């Protein structure tokens, strides 16, 4: 299954590894922040509604 | 010429602080703004002086007519009192600093570097700057901070002289300036209310 990368294994694997990690990290970070901000905003809005 | 403010709303830090303010200031008149700490007097004066745009409403006089004096006096510590004043005199194209020096009893301090002045002496220098601007509308934010009784009287006299020549003055203060002829306006009732409309664009303001 694993393709034969020969002597360049490190270069190719690390490239893919770093790229995929960074891509995922950014996605996770974005989702995390989105969720947090959404929750915080909902809380503020709810408080506002409650206060009238 | 007349300063007319119509239905002005002002904001600070992206938040409306005062709204719906209107007043009119005729030549020779002074208006004293009062209100508790944090109500928005400084913000209002900066808006009138044209340093920040109003949220809505308008200031019916060009900013070119205003001389603004804030808490910070814009005094350069390494320049002497006379040098500080003549700089502003040149910028405003008026030239003569003698009336300003005399008006605030700065003659003794004339050649002293401004950094070596006491708090009240600095303030006097800051106020003397108004006299060299030659502008008709004075917009003053707590002008008498740190001044002693004599100096407050000096300031009152300067304002009266300015009004007598058809000038105007808009002054925010917490203490009594002894300017009995001036109108007084409390800005407290104009405090901005939280908006009701649930519109996003609105809330961004």
């Amino acid at each position, binding site marked *: 299954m694993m393709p*034969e990368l020969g*002597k360049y294994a490190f270069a*190719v694997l690390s490239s893919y590894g770093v790229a995929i990690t*960074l891509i995922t990290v950014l996605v996770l970070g*974005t989702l995390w922040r989105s969720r947090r901000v959404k929750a915080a*905003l909902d809380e503020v809005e709810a408080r506002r509604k409650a206060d009238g | 010429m007349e300063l007319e403010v119509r239905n002005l709303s002002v904001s600070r830090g992206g938040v409306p*602080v005062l709204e719906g303010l209107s007043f009119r200031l005729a030549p020779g008149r002074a208006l004293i703004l009062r209100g508790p700490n944090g109500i928005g007097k400084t913000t209002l004066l900066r808006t009138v002086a044209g340093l920040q745009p109003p949220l809505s409403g308008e200031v019916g006089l060009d900013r070119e007519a205003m001389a603004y004096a804030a808490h910070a006096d814009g005094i350069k510590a390494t320049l002497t009192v006379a040098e500080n004043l003549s700089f502003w005199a040149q910028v405003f194209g008026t030239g003569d600093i003698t009336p300003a020096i005399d008006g605030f009893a700065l003659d003794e301090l004339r050649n002293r570097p401004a950094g070596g002045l006491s708090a009240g002496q600095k303030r006097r220098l800051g106020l003397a700057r108004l006299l060299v601007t030659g502008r008709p509308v004075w917009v003053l934010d707590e002008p008498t901070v740190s001044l002693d009784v004599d100096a407050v009287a000096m300031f009152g006299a300067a304002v009266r002289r300015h009004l007598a020549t058809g000038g105007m003055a808009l002054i925010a203060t917490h203490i009594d300036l002894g300017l009995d002829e001036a109108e007084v306006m409390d800005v407290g009732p104009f405090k901005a209310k939280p908006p009701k409309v649930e519109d996003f664009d609105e809330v*961004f303001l």
Partner: protein
Amino acid sequence: MTADRGAIRTASWDKPLNLNALWEYANPLKFMRTTERVLPFFTVTAFACLAVGLIWGFFFTPDDFRQGSTVKIMFIHVPTAMMAINIWAMMLVTSLVWLVRRHHVSALAARAAAPIGAMMTVIALFTGATWGQPMWGTWWAWDPRLTAFLILFLFYLGYMALWAAIENDDTAADLTSVLCLVGSVFAILSRYAVKFWNQGLHQDSTIMKVGEKDPLAADYYLPLVVCITGFVLYFVALVLIRTNTEIRARRMRALLARERQG
């Protein structure tokens, strides 16, 4: 803008498409509603394209006779490098829209895009460096393209730092927009300056020259196109989510500020 100048005829629908209608999306609420509707589509296709493209590229492409297995890096390096540049261009456009028409969403979109662009730049730099080590025998060279790219990275950093440093949102939007504008001019200027200063090691554009004497083999071309599409969609999906987040954060700051006001 008058209505007829804004209307163009499109072949596919054969009915006038009113460009003015586009400005409606400048309303934050409308923007958020619309994006939340289209977002699933972008997310799914982005994920699909990236997965297909990268798996295809990694597992099912032959080794190059000169570059060996390192050609596989191309499927990441080329799309990210392109995106890094294109995202700056997008930020330039949205910044101009903010400066001219003062639509908040536009400024916030630029803010939302910058970290993505910076990350693309990092990936392109990293993959380029690891590719360069076997190919050119060095991690880094002061080649025109590389150097100009590094300067672009610095612009991204400065741009983000400026956003972070200013408290008032409108002020920040204004200042960063001007920085983006001036930065673009200088980025282009740098590109030429650097070219003049040193002749390059990095290859020039090849993918755009399909049909010329040394075209990229279809073996590589197809997965590359899929990858590029994937990265574009990935960017679109992310920037939409992030813009929504920025809108919410902005609204929250405004609400909190008013709350404190009492």
